[in-house]
């Protein structure tokens, strides 16, 4: 039971990197495409900076790095470090420990 919960929670962590990576990769691609087609007028407006292109590339790189991190430090490894360290248990205990003055 403890392992299952831990697994699920580690999966949560994992999901977040994928979500962020996915979102930024998608936006990055979109912006790069826009940037390649932006008119001169639009570039001039942004003080001469083709911001869609640059921001898009930046986001794309960031998104891919996030995804890379998510996939190269997979679930098993996260769980492994957790268990080896023997972290202070709190996953299933709820508010265990000393007598609870709240629940008389």
């Amino acid at each position, binding site marked *: 039971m403890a392992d299952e919960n831990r697994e699920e929670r580690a999966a949560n962590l994992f999901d977040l990197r994928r979500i962020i990576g996915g979102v930024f990769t998608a936006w990055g691609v979109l912006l790069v495409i826009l940037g390649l087609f932006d008119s001169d007028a639009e570039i001039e407006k942004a003080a001469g900076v083709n911001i869609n292109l640059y*921001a898009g590339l930046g986001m794309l790189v960031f998104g891919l790095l996030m995804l890379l991190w998510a996939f190269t430090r997979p679930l098993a490894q996260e769980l492994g470090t957790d268990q080896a360290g023997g972290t202070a248990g709190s996953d299933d205990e709820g508010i265990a420990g000393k007598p609870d003055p709240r629940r008389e």
Partner: protein
Amino acid sequence: MNEIRLDTNFVDYLIIATYFVVVLGVGFVAKRYIRSSLDYFLSGRSLPAWITGLAFISANLGATEVLGMAANGAQYGVATVNYYWIGAIPAMVFLGLVMMPFYYGSKVRSVPEYLLLRFNKQSHVFNSVTFAVATILIAGVNLYALALVLELLLGWPILAGIIVAAVVVAAYISLGGLSSAIYNEVLQFFVILAALIPITAIGLVDVGGWGGLQDRIKESSIGEAGLHALEGTNPGDVTNPIGATWIGIVFGLGFVLAFGYWTTNFAEVQRALSAKDLSSAQRTPLIGAIPKLFLPFVMILPGMIALVVIPGLGSDQPNMQYNNAIPLLMNEYLPNGMLGIALTGLMASFMAGVAANVSAFNTVVTTDLVEPYIKRGQSDEWYVRFGRVATIAGIAVSILTALIASSYDNLMNYLQALFSIFNAPLFATFIIGMFWKRMTPAAGFWGLIAGTITAAGLFIGYKAGWIGFGSDLDESMWGAGSAFVVDAIVTVLVTLRTKPKPIEELQGLVYGMANIDESAKVKHKWWESPKLVGYSVLAGAAILTIVFW
């Protein structure tokens, strides 16, 4: 040219729409992992430090931070960095290194709950109620600020903007609880950066880099003094645009307001309490402090850029208030695509602000008021369900408080006034309670009451015109300072006349009696040492302040 309706197209709306879909999706996914009330309110106390750290800082990057800091940058110049380097950073380090062992080690689920264990029920109830009220007022500020921006930029009617944002946040918080709030906050952090970095970059190119900006600032309304953080703040000879002495900045802003906010505001502390062990909980505010060191470059700089680039900013012309600095820059520079990202970033920041407060609200109402005093002994699922109801009710009420906020033209000042009333007295009570074992429960209660009444009284007196202050900000600094002092004095006086708790009951709650942390057995890598991170960040803040003196 006063018309600043943005020229948005379907690409921008596509970007915004995908963001909303992801945010709601996270809510649904998080819901599946909720098995207990601990999961719902404290994310199962299982999150790693980088997530809680980013959520911690993101919860603070609400509407008022993003818009307000730029506004302050335009109005006061470089001195605004003091909010960060003298105010926030030391406070966050203090929270991480000194107070977190008590918060986390005592296993309390909320800040008010600490008061219950350390003092008594009365202080617990008082703080829970005032905190609940405060969070709803603050959530309302964020909702209103969002609606203002949507109306300005997209032409949406104010009420429509408020309701759309409220519904989306209500949905993902009530579904997924704190996990949902935190995951989205981490996402929001990056989205906000994705919006602000390009704006800052373009702006700097436009004005000719930092050197060009400096030249143009010297010619602007804030002049040379606007380029300095602390120069020109000597008592009796204040030439810095911020209009305060360094004493006021360091003690009023830095100590009472900043410490009061970061160390006792449950919306922040909750994120640290959800960490998986004490070291992670300690590192949460410390990790959050690292981006905080550098945020001035993307939050204050745009304000200064706006001052020199947007003619008439800060004047009485329609739509030219300082709060509009960022929206005006967006209108000035951004093409479609990037514009959608920037709009999404703004919305993300508002939603982060609302969500942080609503998730703190539902926790305090459920676990601090309803569970112990109103409906005890119900099943765990009952409390989770109630938490969901509380979320929706809280958001509904904050829509109303949004309308209160609408009567203020500088939201940042309204917020500081709220903090002076709700956070400053609490901070005094906490600090004394944590370090002075002799402090009695009765003192905990009466100190809080005295402090809160003091700050509220000053506020009302100022608003009613009975008491004069230099400005709104001046009133809140004095309010916070007075509340702190009055609370402290009353605390000491009452303590000397009443009985303290037996010392054993203070285990884990006071200095010198912290719970031996089980996670001391965990092997942490050297760079994960809280002290190392904390002192490095402090050093960074000191260096930056000197550089920009």
